[in-house]
């Protein structure tokens, strides 16, 4: 689970609309590009390209899940950079996420067994592996909230 009260000031924050199409994907990558620039400006030792690629990969997987499975219409992505972590929160009002049969919906930390040559079903596991924490919540108001968090060594 993410820390309830992450330490440190907010160095960068942005919320963007994610439409369920190619331009929504472009919006995510553009927002991440701005987060990378903010990291370079604000941190003496910003995370390396592989760290950024992994975060972008996880964000792409969650966006793909929302767009292809939830039938959500427009979602929002909120990015927040702190001195030791980047957080992305996706919110949408589409169908609830349905976990694979052997995986409880709130148990995203448990990788599920799958056929090595399956052509589908790797997205959530991949996002989880690329992050420090991935959580999913369905609110009583019918909102899906995906919280992605990845930490890095604070700059001296």
């Amino acid at each position, binding site marked *: 689970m993410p820390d309830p009260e992450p330490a440190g000031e907010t160095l960068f924050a942005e919320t963007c609309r994610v439409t369920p199409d190619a331009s929504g994907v472009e919006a995510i990558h553009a927002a991440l590009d701005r987060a990378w620039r903010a990291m370079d400006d604000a941190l003496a030792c910003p995370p390396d390209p592989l760290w950024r690629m992994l975060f972008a990969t996880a964000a792409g*997987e969650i966006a793909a899940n929302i767009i292809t499975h939830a039938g959500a219409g427009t979602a929002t992505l909120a990015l927040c950079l702190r001195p030791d972590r980047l957080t992305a929160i996706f919110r949408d009002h589409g169908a609830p996420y349905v976990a694979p049969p052997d995986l409880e919906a709130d148990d995203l930390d448990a990788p599920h067994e799958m056929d090595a*040559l399956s052509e589908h079903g*790797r997205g959530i*596991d*991949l996002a989880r592996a690329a992050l420090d924490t991935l959580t999913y919540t369905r609110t009583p108001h019918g909102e899906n909230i995906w919280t992605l968090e990845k930490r890095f060594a604070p700059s001296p």
Partner: protein
Amino acid sequence: MDATIDTQQNGIAVVAFTGRLDFLSAASARGRLADTVAQGSRRLVVDLGETTFIDSSGLGALIGGLKAARKAGGDLRIARPTEQARAVLALTSLDRVFRFYPSVTEALADYDA
């Protein structure tokens, strides 16, 4: 995502995907690979050198191509994976399923070895 297919004299098809190989383009990529096998190229080299981003759907397309090629008695091998592609393949354990080469030339040569 653009795909270019270059069939060599020995029948091996080099399929280069340029741009993002993601959930928006995966169906097209899967179709191009299946068509290539159906047209008689059972040995494929997928060049990922210009693939700027690949996600799990893109990996699914590659697996689809691998299965089609193996069913026809061939194989699908990956050349020039980017750092992001190598990371994604490792995180999904698919680095144990595909064979990788630092260049298209080496992938082609290994088919003939």
